Structures are given as C-alpha cells and as structure tokens.
C-alpha cells in the first residue's frame, strides 16, 4: 500500500515537472509565433479591424493548438491541447502588455489589450473529444474556431468602436487612441486595415473575412496535425 501511494506521489510529481516545462515552453514559443505572425493586429485597438485582424489571427493561432492536440489526444486522450496553448498565450500576452507596453513604454492597457481565442479553443478541443475524428475537427472545429473569433472578442472591442467627432472628422475611439498615444514608428499609412475595398459583399466584411479565415484554418490545422505526428515519438517510454 505504501509503495502504491509512493508511486502515485512520484507520478504526480513527474506530472507537475512536465507541466512546468510545458508552461514555460509554450508561453515563450507560441507567444513568439503569434507576435511574429499577428503582431500589430493584436497589439493595438486601432489595428483590430474587420478584415485583416479577423483573417490573420485565427490562421496564425490554430497552428500550435493543432499540433499539441495531436500529441495530447493521440498519446494521452486528453482533450485540452488547444485550450492549453491559448491559455498560456493569453497569460504571456498579458505579461508583455503589462510589463513592457505599459510598465516600460507607458502605453495605456486599454489601447494594447490582447484578443482572446479561448472560447474557440474550448470548442475545438470538445469537438475533438466528442467526435474522436481528425477530419471532423479539422473541418467543423476550424470553421467554428475562425467564426467565433470576432463575436468572442466583440464584448471587449465594441466600446472602442463608439464614434467621436474630433477635429471635424468622425473617428472611432480606437482611431483616437492611435492618434493621441504617439507611436513614432507606426504612422497612420502603415496600418494594414480594411480600406473599404471589399465592396462585393456590401457592408458585411466580417463574415466574409471569417469564412475565408475558417477555410484556410482547415488546411493549416491538417498541416500542423501532420507535422506533429511526424515529429512526436514516445518510443523511449517502453524502455523506462
């Protein structure tokens, strides 16, 4: 009995060691990946538009979750790969925004808050658990992943889209934040945002962007799933 109890404690300790390493690894690696691929679209409220932000963010963010889901589900039958990755990402992003953007360079946090994909990640994980199917998760899960991004962030973003008249022009409060809080290396023309050229679908830019993003996410998901399968191995476990 004592031996069983000791073994259980050891197993649990090993669990925590692995969790600690994984937390450090993914807060760093996934966060770096997102900073490089999403970057300004996530840094500033005046880059969170209806076209580029909605398209790029889900595509860039589905990568690591797809790979970690592969390992955790196929090897451990644990359906929290996506949630785990995105949770650590959000923690890393808040650390950066608080200590670097606010603490070091004095940008107000209401200008630099990070978006969240936690609702999308939960849905992706649970679809995998319920279906047990890579294909259904890749198609259904990825489409929902992208589709839920904008509504999942709208509660935070909506207040910043309230209009204001400033110097004779109409701006959103986000535009005003971008104008007032000086960024010497981010002139207005540099903003890659919707410029009103997606005329085919009238005013409904967001659903079109989300649909396209979802379509691309399906392929990115399958690609990263395949890469993870190619690289993960637990052959050594048998010999322990």
């Amino acid at each position: 009995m004592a031996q069983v109890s000791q073994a259980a404690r050891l197993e649990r300790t090993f669990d925590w060691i692995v969790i600690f390493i994984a937390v450090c690894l993914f807060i760093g690696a996934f966060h770096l990946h997102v900073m490089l691929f999403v970057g300004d679209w996530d840094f500033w409220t005046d880059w969170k538009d209806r076209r580029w932000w909605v398209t790029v963010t889900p595509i860039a963010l589905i990568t690591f979750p797809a790979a970690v889901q592969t390992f955790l589900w196929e090897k451990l039958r644990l359906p929290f790969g996506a949630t785990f990755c995105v949770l650590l990402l959000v923690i890393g992003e808040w650390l950066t925004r608080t200590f670097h953007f606010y603490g070091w360079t004095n940008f107000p946090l209401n200008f630099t808050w990070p978006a969240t994909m936690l609702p999308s990640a939960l849905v992706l994980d649970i679809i995998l658990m319920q279906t047990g199917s890579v294909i259904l998760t890749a198609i259904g899960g990825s489409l929902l992943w992208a589709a839920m991004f904008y509504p999942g962030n709208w509660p935070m973003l909506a207040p910043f889209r309230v209009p204001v008249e400033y110097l004779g022009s109409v701006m959103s409060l986000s535009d005003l934040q971008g104008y007032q809080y000086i960024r010497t290396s981010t002139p207005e023309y540099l903003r890659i945002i919707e410029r009103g050229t997606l005329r085919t679908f009238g005013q409904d830019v967001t659903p079109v962007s989300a649909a396209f993003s979802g379509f691309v996410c399906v392929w990115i998901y399958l690609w990263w799933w395949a890469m993870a399968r190619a690289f993960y191995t637990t052959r050594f476990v048998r010999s322990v």
Partner: protein
Amino acid sequence: MKQFIRSAFIIGLLALSSSYADAHGEKSQEPFLRMRTVMWYDVQWSTDKVGVNEEMTISGKFHLFEEWPTNVVAAPTSAWLNASVAGPQLIRLATYINDVPMLNSVSLEIGRDYEFKIILKGRNPGRYHIHPMLNVKGGGPIAGPGQWVTVEGDPDTFTNPITTLTGQTIDLETYGLGRVISWHVITIALALGWILFWMRSPFLGRLLLVQGGASEEELVSKRDRIVGLGVLAATLALVIGGYFLTEAQYPVTVPLQSGRTPIPPLEKPPQTLNVNVERATYAVATRTFTLTLKVTNKDQQPVQLGEMSAANIRFLNPQLFKGDHQLLVEPSEPVQPGETKTLKVIVSDAVWETEHLTMSSDPENRFAALLMFFDPQGSRRIIAVSAGTLIPQYL
C-alpha cells in the same frame, strides 16, 4: 577566482563611467537624407517645461526639396506628420498642416512649402527630446530639429476626457479596461476549469494506458463527455450571449476609419533671386565648409545672406543675427538690385563632424540647404540650393 573578481570590477567601472545617452540616433541618419528631403525652418517650441495635463505647441514650416532623392526615398505621396518622442510621454491633441487637421495621411508636393502645428499634452513626467517629424511611406521617418522638454507633475492625475457622439464623456486613458479584464477573467476561468478537470488525476500514466490499448470508456468516460457537452454549451452561450448583450449596450459603432486628406501647399512667393551653387568643399583639417554661389538679385531691394539651414542646423550671419553656429560671407556687402555677384559662404565649425555631415563615408554625397536672404526691412527670401558632390579637401 581573483581573475574573475578583477574582470568583474573592471567591467563594473566601465559601466559606471559610460555617459548618459543624450540623443536618439538622429545623427545616424544619412546626411543627404537630412539635407535633401524635408527642410524644416522657423521651428519653435512654445515652452521647454510643461505640466501633466498642460498643453504645448511645436510649430514651424517645412520645404520639400525640389531634388528629393527619389532614387532612395519614395516621394511623399503618403506622409504623416508625427512627433518624435519616446512613446506617449505626451499625447498628441492635434496636428495641422496649413491649418488642415491631420487625422489621416496626406499627399505632399515636392518643391513646395507647408506650415505645421503640433499640439501636445503632458502625460508622464520626465525629460524628453522632442522633434517634429514627417513619416514618409517608402522612406521612413524624417525628423526635424529637436529640443529638450521637461514634463512635470503627478502622472496619476493625468486625464483624457473625450465626449462621444452618443453623448458619453469618458476618460480615454482608462476607458473600457474594466470590461476587457472582466471578459478575459471569465474566459480564462472557463479554460482553466476545463484543463483542471482533466488534470484532477495523474495524467502522464495515461500514456501507457493508451499504448496498452485501454478502452475509450476507460480513458474518456460518459461523465467526461457530459461535462464536455456542458462546457461546449456554456462556451457557445457565453459567446452568443455576450455578443448580443454587447450589441444592445453599444448600438452605435463605426468601423476603423481610413482615408486621405488633400492639402494644398502654401502659395509660392515670387522668385526674385537666382542662386546657383558653383562649388561646395569641405576642408577636413580645419573643418571648414565653403560654398561658392552666384547670386543674381532681380528684386527692388538689396539683399544679404542671413542664414543657411542644413540638416536642421542653422548657420547665422553675425552681421544680422546671433546664434550658436555662424557663417561668414565674402564679400559681406549686400547684393544690390540688378547685380550678379559671386559669394563665398564659409563655415568653420566642429558641427560638421559632430553631426556626421561630412558625407565622406556615404555613397550619396550631395549637399543641399535653405538659404535665407534679408532685405534692409527684414523681409526674407528663401531659396533651396543644391550642390553637386561635396568635395573633401584633405591637403
């Protein structure tokens, strides 16, 4: 061990002896860029001390040089009037070019003059070197002259009140942050709950269970699936409910705004002087810059060269003005109406070296400046001149 301590001590001494970094790299920008693109003049700062929540103004003019180096810097068809300062230590309340508010980027015309004004408000105490700056698409930032400004006061007292079109007055400094944090806390709690649910028992052992061919029910039980469906339903309800509730709370919203603002340049004054640069040299040993000009005065008044402005440095004729950097004009007598005269403008000043303007290590080695001639009544005529290569004289 002793070696290590000795090395650490020396490194520490070196670190302590390093001087305070006073500037932010403006001298590192190539001299031809500083001379041959945006030529800033009449730049003034309303104050060098401003309190938190107090305003200050930077105003002046700039001339876009006729021979803008389009081979290396894109023409300013997309430009943005900015302020070079270390982040939002002051906020930008307003910017104007020729009295037109600059909320969007603008297309500017080469060879023309524009008047600018930047209104800033103190936010974070400290001492900052502030320049007016023009960001040019395909060219980067082109900074004007800078001045140290001290912001004093308590940063916690800073407010930024704004009244929206929906009639709400908010503080843009903190607006919406509580809502952002709340939403993140809710979603993080849900996510953490899901993860902790699965980590309630040791999980690495599952590796062997899966490899050993354990049943699906053993690994993911019916209860787990019910909890999963519950979390799925809760997540969807949160997102859908949150979206519609937000729509009800904020029925009036606009997308991010973009656009271009057309700005006509200042009117060109009649050109009453012809100035041609015949030669420009720099004597390295004596740090002496010499510009040979042929000036034809088609004006009714005699004129005298009062100032040469190059790369944001003002060289002043001591016969007319006092200043840190002086120039000598030979012959010093004014150019009379109808007269054509060859003038030598001589500047002996260490600033050519300290500001990295000698251009000897740059592939583009062409000088340009704004020359300002004054008549006896003090009226000014401004001419932009370009020299060919600045010839260094080593002997």
